[in-house]
């Protein structure tokens, strides 16, 4: 799948690079009659606007005084095809207070009454710039005389005091006829480059003549490295459900600084390889924090009294730290002074993690180490795209004296050991060992699967009404979700009400146990009383799965371009014992179902029925073993899901004796 998603720049040459549907002259103002007169964009007749031409030029420069600046020049030429398309040309640029937006120009081209092209230049009075928030400003502008059929051409420049290049998105929410990108930077800098997405563009690289700047009375010469890209006929970005980071599938360029080497200094490698990244975090204060002295070591002994197993010990330490330091809801990697945080009683995830790690590491033969994580919402991490900014947070990996290994995200509410937020369950976490080594860990494989185990004991009375009790035990991530959901309600009654509406049954009584315990499970019990069943004459129809676990509406799209990402691996067990009493006998049992899905790993569905005396036993199992399903296996997933829904709707026919 990664081979499809990512291709290293420089390997690509696409013969059709310049074969855009609408031929355009990229120069500002060179709008053709064809562009003005076109009524529909043939490759996408539903489009409300098309980007006829786009140019993004990102230049890292050095001023004569030796200061860095990133200049981003944007040129867009839009064709408005429908009323909704007009929104594309109402511009809003949010920028940092250290940045500067300038050189704004906008011209609208319309067909005149006699077929001539009428140009309307935007007046400066429709360019606004104001404070947006504490650290940002906002520039807005609206080109004039925009109507259906208009061609609107806009340029603007954003100047920033930085040498970093943000992601450059080539694919847009509207179709793109042609987009050029030029990235240039002094050869003092080296960047790791990556192209993301399914669409492709052509690229070339070159060097340009010498430029110079003055520093400390001395003139330095440097060359410019230039990367050029061209993409044509791009479809709009498609947003599909079950995707943590849909934007990573759009054609875009990613540049991360790898090395800085000025003539007056030795080279500074930021991210030549992952070892450089490891070194950066080791030297950042993260590892020194984790190896540091726990500020309340003396208070640990009473906390650990009577705690024997590693799980008890680690939980006690985590709970002790979290009872003393409140999480401020911020996620970070580099901790501040944790001793100060301990005194203040409030800190970020980094500081709380470090305090927990310090406490664990103060115990004999325990070892707590950080695992750096890239949040799934920010896209996949790739081996070959190396950068310190590839990580968003870290969790802890704890090795106990008995050799058992535990993962811990201390600040996650309602969680437990080995229960971390689904957005951090990634295939590649970077484990930094205390001894200086580092390695990748696959959390999707190392963390346990989540489980929902339900046992229903139901009975049918003489009137054909169903009563009984259902006990459900949730484990790992599902437990965390159930606890969190329960805690989101202001009262137990509201929680029951929500459940009742969701499953469509009248619940007589319902209770939860373990919702406030620091464990990996929670149990819910509820009772049903006198539920009406469908019936006809002597026949009674009983669906033993009283509340289906799956909804058929999950995967409505018939085709899929991007992988389906599930939050975690999941196993579902439903065992139901139905006492039909002496008044009924089975007329017909549903078919057994056993289904494996080779494209979904070890995923399976099993539904079995067995009658012993007056009791019908129903045994249903569903297991989803893959967290990520490639687009090519989408049809198999859809069928698998559909069969789960079919199994959950199985019906037993009973007849009155």
């Amino acid at each position, binding site marked *: 799948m990664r081979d499809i998603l990512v291709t290293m720049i420089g390997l690509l040459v696409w013969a059709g690079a310049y074969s855009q549907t609408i031929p355009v002259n990229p120069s500002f103002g060179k709008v053709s009659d064809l562009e003005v007169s076109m009524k529909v964009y043939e490759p996408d007749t*539903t489009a409300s606007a098309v980007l006829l031409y786009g140019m993004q030029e990102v230049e890292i420069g050095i001023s004569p005084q030796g200061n860095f600046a990133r200049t981003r020049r944007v040129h867009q030429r839009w064709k408005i095809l429908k009323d909704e398309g007009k929104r594309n040309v109402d511009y809003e640029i949010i920028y940092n207070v250290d940045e500067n937006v300038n050189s704004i120009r906008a011209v609208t081209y319309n067909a005149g009454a006699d077929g001539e092209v009428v140009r309307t230049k935007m007046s400066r009075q429709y360019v606004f710039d104001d404070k947006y928030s504490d650290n940002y400003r906002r520039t807005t502008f609206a080109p004039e005389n925009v109507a259906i059929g208009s061609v609107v051409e806009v340029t603007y420049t954003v100047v920033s005091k930085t040498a970093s290049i943000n992601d450059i998105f080539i694919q847009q929410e509207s179709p793109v006829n042609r987009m050029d990108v030029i990235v240039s930077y002094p050869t003092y800098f080296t960047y790791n480059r990556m192209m993301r997405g399914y669409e492709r563009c052509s690229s070339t690289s070159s060097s340009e003549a010498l430029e110079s700047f003055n520093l400390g009375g001395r003139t330095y010469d440097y060359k410019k490295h230039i990367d050029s890209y061209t993409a044509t006929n791009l479809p709009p970005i498609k947003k599909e459900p079950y995707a943590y980071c849909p934007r990573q599938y759009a054609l875009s360029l990613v540049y991360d600084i790898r090395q800085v080497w000025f003539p007056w200094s030795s080279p500074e490698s930021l991210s030549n390889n992952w070892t450089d990244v490891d070194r950066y975090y080791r030297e950042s204060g993260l590892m020194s924090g984790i190896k540091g002295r726990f500020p309340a070591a003396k208070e640990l002994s009473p906390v650990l009294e009577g705690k024997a197993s590693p799980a008890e010990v680690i939980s006690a330490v985590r709970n002790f730290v979290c009872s003393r330091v409140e999480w401020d809801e911020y996620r970070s990697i580099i901790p501040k002074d944790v001793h100060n945080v301990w005194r203040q*009683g409030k800190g970020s995830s980094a500081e709380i993690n470090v305090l927990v790690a310090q406490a664990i590491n103060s115990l004999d033969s325990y070892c707590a180490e950080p695992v750096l994580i890239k949040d799934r919402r920010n896209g996949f991490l790739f081996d070959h795209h190396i950068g310190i900014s590839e990580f968003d947070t870290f969790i802890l990996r704890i090795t106990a004296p008995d050799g058992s290994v535990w993962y811990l995200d201390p600040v996650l509410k309602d969680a437990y050991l080995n229960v971390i937020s689904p957005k951090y369950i990634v295939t590649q976490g970077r484990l930094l060992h205390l001894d200086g080594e580092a390695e990748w860990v696959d959390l999707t494989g190392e963390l346990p699967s989540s489980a929902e185990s339900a046992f229903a004991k139901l009975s049918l009375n003489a009137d054909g009404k169903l009563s009984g009790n259902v006990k459900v035990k949730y484990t790992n991530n599902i437990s965390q979700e159930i606890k969190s959901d329960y805690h989101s309600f202001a009262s137990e009654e509201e929680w029951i009400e929500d459940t009742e509406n969701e499953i469509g049954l009248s619940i007589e009584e319902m209770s939860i146990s373990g919702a406030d315990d620091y464990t990996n499970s929670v149990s819910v019990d509820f009772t049903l009383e006198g539920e009406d069943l*469908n019936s006809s004459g002597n026949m009674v*129809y009983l669906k033993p799965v009283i509340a289906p676990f799956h909804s058929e509406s999950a995967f409505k799209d018939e085709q899929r371009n991007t992988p389906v990402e599930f939050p975690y691996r999941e196993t579902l067990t439903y065992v139901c014992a139905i006492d039909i009493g002496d008044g009924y006998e089975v007329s*017909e049992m*549903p*078919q057994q179902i056993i289904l494996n899905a080779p494209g979904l790993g070890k995923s399976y569905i099993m539904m079995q029925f067995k009658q012993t005396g007056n009791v019908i036993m129903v045994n249903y199992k569903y297991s989803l073993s893959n967290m990520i399903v490639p687009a090519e296996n989408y049809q198999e997933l859809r069928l698998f*899901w559909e069969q789960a829904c079919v199994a959950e709707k199985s*019906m037993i*026919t009973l007849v009155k004796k």
Partner: protein
Amino acid sequence: MTKAFLPGIILFCLASVTVAGQNNHAVICLDQEVFTMKNVSSGSLTVKRVVDVLDIHGKDEAIFYTFTDKSTILSSFSAIVSKDGKTTRVGKNDLSFVSLATGLAEDSFVTAYSPDTQPPYRIEYNYIIQYKKGFAVFPFYSPVQSEKSACENGSYTIEVPDGTRIAYRSNIVGEPECTDKNGIVSYKWAVSAYPGYVSEHKMPSRLGLVPWVQASPEEFMFDGVNGNQSTWERFGQWQYSLLEGTDDLPEQTVALVADLTRECSSDTDKVRNLYEFLGDKTRYVSIQFGIGGFKPFRASLVDKTGFGDCKALTNYMRCLLRSAGIESEYAVLNTNRAFLDPDYASVGQTNHAMLCVPVEKDTLWLECTNPSYPFGYRHSDVAGHNAIIINSDGGHLVKVASYPDSLSKRCQNTTVVLYSDGSASLKVNKKDYLDYSEDWIGFSSLSEEKKMRILMSGADVQPQDFSLDGISDNFKSYDGDPMWTPNVSIDYSFNVRAYSGINGTRMTVMLNPFSKKMQFQRGKRQNRIVTAAGTSVHDTVRYVIPDGYVVESLPQDVVLDGEFGSFESTCRSIGNTVLVRQTTTLKPCDLAPSEYDKYREFIKTLNKTYSSYLVLVKSD
């Protein structure tokens, strides 16, 4: 006072909440606000607010936020958070500042602070907001922001120079205590022992449940412009004065209007042509600074740029019509609130401008901000709402005519051909009327994929081979009848691989693939049950049974009728088909909480019926 006493105070407050017996999430121990009007152009609001946040759900009461612009300034701010005997001081530097602008340019900001302390804790705010360049209304007083928040002690005082006439209205707090001292007249409203309210579905407007005071000076100045708002008539005079000088339509546009209307046989046709012209030429762009929030751009400016906000576009349309010899009237209303109090007029109660055009047999209300609304249609955000018509005589309170509830309906006819392997082919015709038709404005511009997702959103099936077979509407067929309404008809079809459950010789078939289950609440009802407008949903599903199968079981017919609505479900076997008809009608109502038990049973039965299924069995 030493810090050691603070937990005791919190405990005292907690005790008093228990007496209130509401299981509240927060208690506003004190909310004391004083607005001092120095003169017509300046004043200040001084606030002291103390809140005990008892649990995480009471957090909203502890959030500080204030709306500012270039003439409204937060001049001082401090807060103290107390928890477990520790106090944390909060100052101006801890505040966040965010623009509220959503349009091209708006002078509107929010300054906010949200404590990140875990409850329970107490927070005490002290701050002052200065008003410069005038103000049309005094700050709105409403000490309770969210459900299950009690208010023990609140007061709002407005101090004005002697001789200043003010108007006010309020809820729960009663009449103010008035004093006159040293040339300052004070009006003081008090809130005590307010127990809080509970949020429930189908509840009355929140504004009817919480204490508030709304007040304004009769003579005012806003952004340097003077006005009088003692009545809607006087308000209208002020608003009309802002329209003056804005009707400068360029000569070439006047000529174009003449061209566009030359062939028209009636005023209605002229208005229709010019409304289409407005849609083609303009787009909504919001630029609002100071008095620009009330005064429209000149027509010549809209003509030149092709954009404007609701005021500018309405005024532009007014000028287009005038040049065609048709008089129309600029009107303002509130799209979120239907009612405007005839006895309390003030700037700021309205949020939208429209154009009222009397024609042959009808009065047209033109939505100039979005001319894609069908011509001749009074859309759901304005129909039945009060509006102020602005003309040279001043303002006139009127009501935009509404439509009978019976016209608001959604009808769906589905034919399902069932196959013996459990698969099915479905053909659907969906017809939406009146306000439901608004959902389809702009639908044709969506991608095929989005269209499919919207049309399949109510169906719990996996579609195969989805096809949108046709869409038609009557949006351009207004005939001058005041009761003309828009409608949309959509045809689509798809297959479903596993529509029916195969259980040995039997097949189970869901009664309605487009189930319309409704929510209900389990607990005891606190508020009255309110449905503002009636509506109905009609479903017909015709099943074609596969060869070799016969009907074994049909769900029983259900007929329910109550003050809140009715529901009817019938199921008939006719030859090799089964015909299912289901109709849900919701009536406008305002019922006592005790009626909720009936409502709950109604919804439970309705949901149960939607969940029921047909059973077919092999005939041999």
